[in-house]
């Protein structure tokens, strides 16, 4: 029963996709440019170093979107473009998160160092 329902749903979705494919508008250069800007924003945020896998997936999705758009598969292109944007944002957020973590680690280290110094001084004070 589950297989029948899934199959039916898949067919419906496929038909809808096929039926809609011809109606989906192509990806505009502006949309591509916006997406690429999103990737560059992620790169600027340090995604090269801190989120290379997500950035790579974003670029793969972009490449696939471009290929699909070149083939006239506009629906696929839009989906892959959406994936591209989502991966790029994830990469940017991860880079930011790593940056934040690094900052937090730096601050923690500084706090640890200061705490150690404070403890040493307090020990000196107590020792006196």
């Amino acid at each position: 029963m589950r297989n029948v329902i899934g199959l039916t749903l898949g067919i419906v979705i496929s038909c809808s996709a096929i039926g809609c494919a011809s109606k989906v508008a192509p990806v505009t250069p502006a949309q591509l440019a916006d997406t690429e800007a999103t990737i560059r924003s992620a790169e600027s945020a340090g995604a090269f170093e801190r989120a290379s896998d997500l950035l790579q997936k974003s670029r793969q999705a972009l490449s696939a979107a471009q290929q699909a758009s070149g083939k006239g598969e506009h629906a696929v292109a839009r989906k892959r473009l959406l994936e591209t944007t989502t991966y790029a944002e994830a990469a940017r957020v991860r880079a930011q998160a790593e940056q934040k973590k690094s900052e937090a680690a730096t601050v923690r280290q500084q706090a640890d160092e200061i705490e150690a110094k404070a403890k040493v001084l307090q020990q000196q004070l107590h020792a006196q």
Partner: protein
Amino acid sequence: MESDEQEAEAMKNQADKGDPMRNRRVSLSSILLGVLTVAACAAPGPPPKELVEARLAVEDAKSAKADQRATRTYDSAVANLEAANKSWEKDHDAAAILHQARLAEAEARKAQYAAEIQAADEALRSETDRKTRQAIALRDAELILLRKRGQEAELGRMKALANEQEQALLATKEKLAAERARAEQEAARLREEQKKLTALAAERARAEDEAARLRAEQEKFALAAEQARAEAEAARLRDEQEKLAALAAEQARAEQAERELARLRAEHEKSRAELTGTLSRLAKVREEARGVIVTLPGNIYFNFNKADVKPAMQMQLTKIAKALAAVPDQNLLIEGHTDSVGSNEYNQSLSESRAQSVQTILLAGGIAAERMDIKGYGESKPIADNDTPSGQAQNRRVEIVLVPAKK
């Protein structure tokens, strides 16, 4: 759609390769793979790699509390994952599965990292707070240490200052002690001086009392002396008065005597004049400073080379004696003189003998012997030239000098 299927196959193959990021979740992946394996029994095959990654990503997101910190994105990821799972379980639309899985994975990662950003923010804030607190604690400790060091330095300085002050105090005390000793010595000296002064004052008072007493005594004595002096003066005055009276009496007597003397002188002058007149009738008389001189010429009264008075002249000489006897206040100095004929010794002897002869007659004529004195001068006092007979006659003489008798 072909590429999606290839990717689905590739995803299936890669699912077992592992990712460094997921290595720490190997156990969880193993469990999920087990679940998928069980599910695969009902599904047409193993789930695509994208779906597996999406499920892992959602689990990671949940582990990162993205359901609380990035709820919207997490819910979207979950919805996409559910859609992908449903597609995988029911219609096996590979393209839709892969698309939904990719979106689910990307959104799950986005939610995970957003949650991690929040967590990192919280950690950053917390660590910043901790850093700030520790910095404050460090600063406080440094301040306390500095203050303590400063206090220690200040304490040291204060101790040094206290030592200096103590030394100065000791020096001052010693100085004061020395000053006090000197002052006590000075006070003792002053007390001694005071005692001495007191003794001196007492002595002076005693001396003043004594002086007053002496002054009183002196005054008394002075009074007595004055009185004595006054009495003596009075006595002296009385004596003076008496003396004056006596002097007056004496003066009266003197005046009386003077008057008597004047009278006597007058009488004497008179008698002398009378005597002189009488004698002038009897002999040669002259007056000199030493008195009346009666000259008895030798050639008249004596013979040549004889000492006795001629008898004829003895009566004359007796008259002269009687006249001289009338003036008993006149002594008689009988002087014999010769001329230069003959030796000196002879003339001396002759002159003395003739004076003796005259004295004898005068004695017989009533003149007391004590009124008469004789002297022989020889030829030593001529009154005329001895070279002539006249001169020689004048030089032969006896002179009776009337000299007032000494009373």
